[in-house]
Structure formats: C-alpha cells, structure tokens
C-alpha cells in the first residue's frame, strides 16, 4: 500500500510539473510582451526593455520558469501581478476559500444525493423511484450549468424573496445569512454532477448486483443490507473515479456560477486577469486549479486502491 501511495504521489507530482511547464510556456508565448500591456502603446522601446530587465523577462524562458518554480515550491510564492503590482498570494488566499467552500458544499450535496438516489434506483429497478432518478439524471446532464442558476434566481429571489439574489455574506456576519447566500449557488453547482454521479452509481451497482459473488453472499445467508454493503464496496470504484474528476471540474463551473450570483471568488480574480491580460495572475489561478484537480484525483485513486485491492495489485 505504501509503495502504491508513493507511486501515485510521484506520478501526481510529475503531472503537476508538466502542467506548470506547459502553462508557463503558453503564457510566455503570447506575442505581446507584458511590458507592452502594462506600459501602453505609447511606451518607447527603451522603456519596454527597461521593464523587461526589471522583471527578468529578458532572460531565456527556461530560466524564468525555473526561477518561478523555485519561488513557488520553496516559498509558496506565486509572485506579483505585472499590471496591478498586487501580491498574488494575497489575492488567492482572499478568493480561494470562497470558491473552495462553494465547490466543497456543492460536491458533498451532489455526492450524497447521487449515492442515495443511484442506490435506490438500482435496487428498485423500473419502479417510479428509478424512473424519477433517471429523468432527473437526463435533465441534469442536458441542461447547461448557468440555466438553473438563472431560473432559480428569477423564481426564488426576484419573485419571492426567499434567498438573496446574489452576493456573498461571509460566515463572520452570521451563519444563517451565510448559508442563505450560498444555498442557491451550491445547489446550481451540484445539479450536473448529481446527475452524472447518480447515473454512474445506478449502472455500476446494477452491474455488481448481477455478479456471481453477490449470489454467493446471499447463499451464505447474509442479510439484505449486508449484501448491499458488499455490493456498494465493489460498485463504488467507478463512482469514486468520476467523483475525483468532478471535484476538479466543478471549479470550472464555479466560475460561471459565481458570476451569475455575483460572488467574489476565484472567478472574479481570473476573469479580471483575463480581461486585463494579466498573464501572471492567470497562470497563478490556473496553477491553483491544477493542484486541486491533481490532488482530488490522487485521493480518488488511493480510495479505489483501498476499495478494490485487485486494482491496486494490477497497478503496482
């Protein structure tokens, strides 16, 4: 098991390195020098050369990359924005927790509901519960992410006044208000993933329920709940994999949802950075997302190795 953890962690680290290299090369391959963007069209060649020298932009890209990597890894320093001169660590620490909270709550909601619904759907196959769950799953994957957000805002905040139409109330200003402000965003965030994970749970459990070893468990006289627990342990493997990917993927949708509900999370930082062509900040935000994505997948992999040791044995 330890060998497996080390292997997987090593592989994750390697993918992070590759992504960071690609990311760095992409942001540096944009034809406009950051100096031109910051200083404007009127800046002279000398001014630009001076700016590039000040910020180390005149060095070879590989040297720049290694310097950036060294700061990031050894000091956890994301650097400063070229345009606003703001410390990006401050910006990330300010906005990341907001997005992280939305995604975590949305993820837990999606996972809980889909596990329950998917299990019931598989157990009571072709029952009204199953039909409802399948309908919900089809709707959830087909509707674009922002649409339920708009509808909910219209129905529950503009016409009724049940929830605030937007904005983020920090936890410090009262738990109830805080929860009210994030309820709709979290719900909207979870719909798509709820649908995907429900379908996955249902189909995976259905497959497992037909396996010989489930019949063996029943032939051994184990009670229904016990047999189901056996089955879930086997059926969860693909669900965990998809859940791991979903968690990272949810940050992408969170950007849109934050925009719709006017929440000052990572989306504000990223979209502003893109508009202002603040490539250093884009790079920092995307790097953060990548780290979260890779870590989520690493956890999913290890969880699966525990759930199904045969997979682990095959991988090692």
């Amino acid at each position, binding site marked *: 098991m330890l060998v497996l953890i080390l292997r997987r962690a090593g592989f994750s680290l390697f993918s992070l390195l590759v992504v960071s290299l690609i990311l760095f090369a992409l942001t540096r391959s944009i034809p406009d020098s950051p100096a031109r963007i910051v200083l404007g069209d009127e800046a002279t060649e000398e001014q630009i050369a001076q700016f590039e020298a000040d910020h180390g932009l005149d060095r070879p890209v590989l040297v720049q990359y290694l310097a950036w990597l060294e700061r990031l890894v050894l000091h956890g320093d994301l650097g400063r924005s070229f345009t606003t001169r703001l410390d990006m660590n401050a910006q990330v620490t300010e906005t990341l927790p907001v997005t992280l909270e939305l995604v975590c709550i949305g993820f837990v909601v999606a996972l809980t509901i889909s596990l329950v619904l998917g299990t019931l759907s598989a157990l009571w196959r072709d029952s009204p519960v199953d039909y409802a769950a399948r309908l919900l799953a089809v709707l959830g994957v087909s509707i674009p992410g922002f649409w339920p957000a708009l509808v909910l805002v219209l129905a529950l905040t503009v016409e009724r006044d049940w929830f605030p139409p937007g904005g983020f109330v920090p936890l410090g200003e009262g738990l109830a208000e805080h929860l009210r402000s994030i309820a709709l965003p979290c719900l909207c965030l979870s719909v798509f993933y709820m649908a995907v994970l429900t379908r996955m749970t249902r189909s995976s459990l259905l497959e497992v329920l037909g396996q010989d070893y489930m019949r063996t468990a029943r032939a051994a006289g184990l009670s229904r709940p016990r047999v189901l627990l056996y089955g879930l342990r*086997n059926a969860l493997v693909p669900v965990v994999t998809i859940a791991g990917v979903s968690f990272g993927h949810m940050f992408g949708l969170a950007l849109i949802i934050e925009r719709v509900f006017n929440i000052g999370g990572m989306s504000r930082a990223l979209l502003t950075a893109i508009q202002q062509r603040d490539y250093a900040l884009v790079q920092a935000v995307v790097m953060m997302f990548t780290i979260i994505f890779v870590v989520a997948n690493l956890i999913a992999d290890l969880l699966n190795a525990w759930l199904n040791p045969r997979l682990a044995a095959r991988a090692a």
Partner: protein
Amino acid sequence: MSPRDDLGVSDMAPIPVVGRGAPGKPLLEIEGLHIAFGARDRWFEAVRGVDLRIHAGEVVGVVGESGSGKSLTALAIMRLLPRGARISSGRMRFAGTDLLALDERGMNRLRGSAMGMIFQDPLTALNPALPVGHQIADSIRTHQGLGRAAALARAEALLDLVGIARPRERLRAFPHELSGGMRQRVMTALAVANDPRLLIADEPTTALDVTVQAQVMAMLDRIRRELGIAVLFISHNLELVAEVCDRVAVMYAGRVVEGAVVEALFEAPRHPYTRQLLRCIPRLNDETGPMPTIPGLPPRLGAIPGGCPFAPRCDAAFARCTAEAPDIWRRGDHMARCWEALR
C-alpha cells in the same frame, strides 16, 4: 475427537450417516417443481415437473446437458433464482420445513447454515474486494453470532479442513491471490462454514484443470464423509457422478428422464438418452476415431416438442414417442420416462 468437535460444533444433534436407499423421511423432498422464465404474460417453462429426494448423508447426482434445468433446480432449492425466473408450481420440503412458505428472513436462516452451496466458477463467485477470511467469517458471524476473533478462528479451522496450507496467512488473502483450486476450496469452506445438512455443489470442478479437479473432488468427498453432509451434486460429467454419487437423476429439457442407484444406471440404463450419454464418455484406451456425440441439439426454451422431448434425437424412437408424453417406467428405485422402456 470427531471432526465436528474439532470445529467447535457440539451443540447440534448428531446426524446419522445413512447409506444408499436409506429408509425414512428424506432430508430434501422436491415434488413437481416447475420453474418459468419470462415477464408479464409470456412465460416459458425451463423446469417442467422435477421430483427429487435426498436422504441425510446421501450423495445424489443430477446430470444433463446445459439448459436441461439442473442448475435452475439447484438454485430454486436455495430460492436464489435469477431475475426473471420464478417457481411456478411444486413443493419443496427441507428437514420438515416447507421451503416455498418461508419468507426472506426464514430463507436467510437456512442459507449458508443448514444448506450450503458451491458455485461453478470460484473466480467470480468470491468477492474480489474482500479477504477470503473476512467472507467466511461474515457468514459465521451471521449464523452463529460469534465475535470477530472467534469467527476468524473458526474460518481458519475451516481453511485447514478444506486442505489449505498455512490457513492463518490465507485468511488475509484476496481471491485474486489464490489459484483456481484454492479458490474452490475456500468456496467449500464458506459453504460448510455453519455445518450444513445439505451441500449443493453446482458443477464445482468444471472451471478447473483436470488434475486440480481430482484433488478438489477428493477433498469434497472427504469433507462430506467427515461431516456427514448430504450432497446434491450437479454435473455434466458422468464419470465424476459415477465416482461419488449414491443415486443419479438424468435431466433432459426440464424433466428427470431417468433416476436410479448409480450402479443400476450405469449397468442397465433404461432411457436411450442415458445410454447415449454413457456412450459419449471418452476412454483413454479407445481406438482413434471421432468422439461419439449425440446428434442434434436439446430443444430451445419455449419450443419443446410434444410427446417425448428427446424423440427427435433418439435412436430408439417410434411413432408413439412423438405423439404422446411418455409414462413412467418403474422398477424398485429405478425410474425412466420412456415409451421404449415400457415396451
């Protein structure tokens, strides 16, 4: 010290080991069992009136080609028929209990306890995600209410009983870490974990190599003798049946077509199907030439012909065979469902 005591089971009444043709009430009695497949208003009968009796300590073999309904019959006893199949009529009594009157909880008390079952493919029949010791211990805890440690200790004794070396280490092994023969031994340990009175073995050696097959059969035979368990042995292998069984039932198209004590069946078969099956057993000293086979195929589900279902493939069939379902020929313990036998 008897093997039973060795396994820590002393509170159960001793089960008399009775030889063939045992008198008295049978342990398992099946009468007119019908099993249908289908949905809504389209049902096909796959088992069409099976009668079967097994006495305590007796080994009864059921042979037939695939699709003859032998495995379905076995699953029906455990009430573990696959989705879409149901018992449409018949009676099944096990040790005085009406099996068809039991609810799920009542069945669960019997399954894995008084009735154990060994399945054909030990690779797919064991849960790949759990150590084998865990799987055996779970069954023991369910039926005997033992604690974890005590259940594992008993599981270890069971692995030893089925001839697995270093049983303590093997408790922690996952099925994929064991060979096919070992897995079938584990499967056997699971099936006899709670001292069953009846063991149903559905083609227990079909998925194994021939050499391993012999070892596993020897192990099964030893265990059922030591523990005095009655065995329902499902197989398509007549040779194996001849070695281990007291009585044999030959099934064809959902019915028992011939039933007899094993010697009678092999020495004086009355049904042409049995005779042709016996002719198909390959022998090592046979002169070269094509292997004998039975021409034609068994009838498809839902398309079983009227009269005797074997008539189209039978070398002894005459006019009456295709016209009328055969009556039963009977002499003592020996029965056959055949017009030719009655002539």
